[in-house]
């Protein structure tokens, strides 16, 4: 009977929403990057499922409903892109140059390190789009035959690491332009980096948010091309 209940779609939905709200409360009380709500909620749900010996498949009956909304939510990113487009036009040169070359360096370095450490091809494909916002990263990863879950985990890790080491790096390198700070954080550490950029100020926040969209579009093209090139040269 227990199994019948846990495989009811309502179960997965309730567990997801409930644990996420709990994680959000914890994050509000202790706003540390390591208490990222998604990371915390993931740990909480896994803990709950392991405790109750509930298979992932049962939980996913309800969980899939949230999963289905990822694509429309990504499409909705077109709205903030439209709203901040005037900023992009004003700072087009620095933003586009920074993001195109930055993404190239980021993906290329990731690929090289992945090859040096002899990662499997599907894992390498999964981690190449790690600086892009989750929804787009998963789309890119799946197109390159990566594993969506590995991409997801590494994307979150990138965001958390970026928001922790970002500010000291920018300070060390004397990056003081608000636009530069915002683009650096948003383009390297997506939405979690943007949350950090907002602590600097509104320009940084808006720039960072804009950089998420632009980096996403740039990486869509760069990741498969670089994966192909690296594969050609080294594998």
């Amino acid at each position, binding site marked *: 009977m227990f199994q019948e209940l846990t495989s009811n779609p309502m179960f997965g939905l309730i567990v997801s929403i409930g644990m996420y709200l709990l994680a959000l409360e914890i994050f509000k009380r202790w706003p540390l990057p390591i208490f990222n709500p998604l990371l915390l909620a993931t740990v909480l749900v896994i803990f709950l499922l392991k405790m109750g010996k509930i298979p992932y498949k049962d939980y996913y009956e309800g*969980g899939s409903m949230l999963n289905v909304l990822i694509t*429309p939510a990504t499409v909705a990113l077109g*709205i903030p892109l439209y709203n901040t487009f005037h900023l992009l036009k004003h700072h087009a040169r*620095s933003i586009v140059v920074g993001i195109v*070359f*930055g993404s190239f360096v980021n993906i290329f370095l990731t690929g090289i390190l992945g090859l040096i450490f002899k990662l499997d091809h599907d894992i390498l494909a999964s981690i190449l789009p790690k*600086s892009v916002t989750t929804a787009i990263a998963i789309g890119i990863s799946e197109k390159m035959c990566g594993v969506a879950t590995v991409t997801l985990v590494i994307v*979150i890790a990138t965001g958390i690491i970026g928001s922790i080491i970002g500010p000291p790096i920018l300070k060390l390198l004397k990056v003081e332009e608000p636009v530069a700070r915002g683009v650096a954080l948003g383009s390297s*550490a997506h939405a979690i980096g943007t949350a950090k950029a907002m602590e600097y100020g509104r320009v940084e926040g808006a720039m960072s948010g804009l950089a998420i969209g632009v980096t996403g579009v740039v990486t869509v093209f760069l990741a498969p091309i670089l994966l192909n090139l690296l594969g050609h040269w080294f594998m």
Partner: protein
Amino acid sequence: MELYKQLLYILGFSFAGEVISNVFQLPMPGSVIGMLLLFCALQFKFIKVHQVEKVGAFLLENLSILFLPAGVGIMVYFPIIRKNWWLLLLITFITTGVSIGFIGKLVQWVKRKYEEDAIDIKQKGEQK
């Protein structure tokens, strides 16, 4: 039915993106094509922001929770990365740090060299 109508628009663009990605066998994910379609539709005034705003805001403000089920999937996939999870972390650490420093420096350089009117523009951007 207002919210359903907005949802219909967004789902329409999502589906159109998926169809285009599949039919033309593009390397670009359908979701990104849908995003660009929606952006163009707004930019060229085929639809207005208020027609998709509410559902868009609902989806975006609560974006993170949508990834929870996929994230929990790590309990199934963990064996794949068990032997090299610390390598993945190390790579992430190095590349993210390099990326932040590189982009910050580059954007600042291009901006100071070619976009002299930085301060004015910043204020204009804020007013909008």
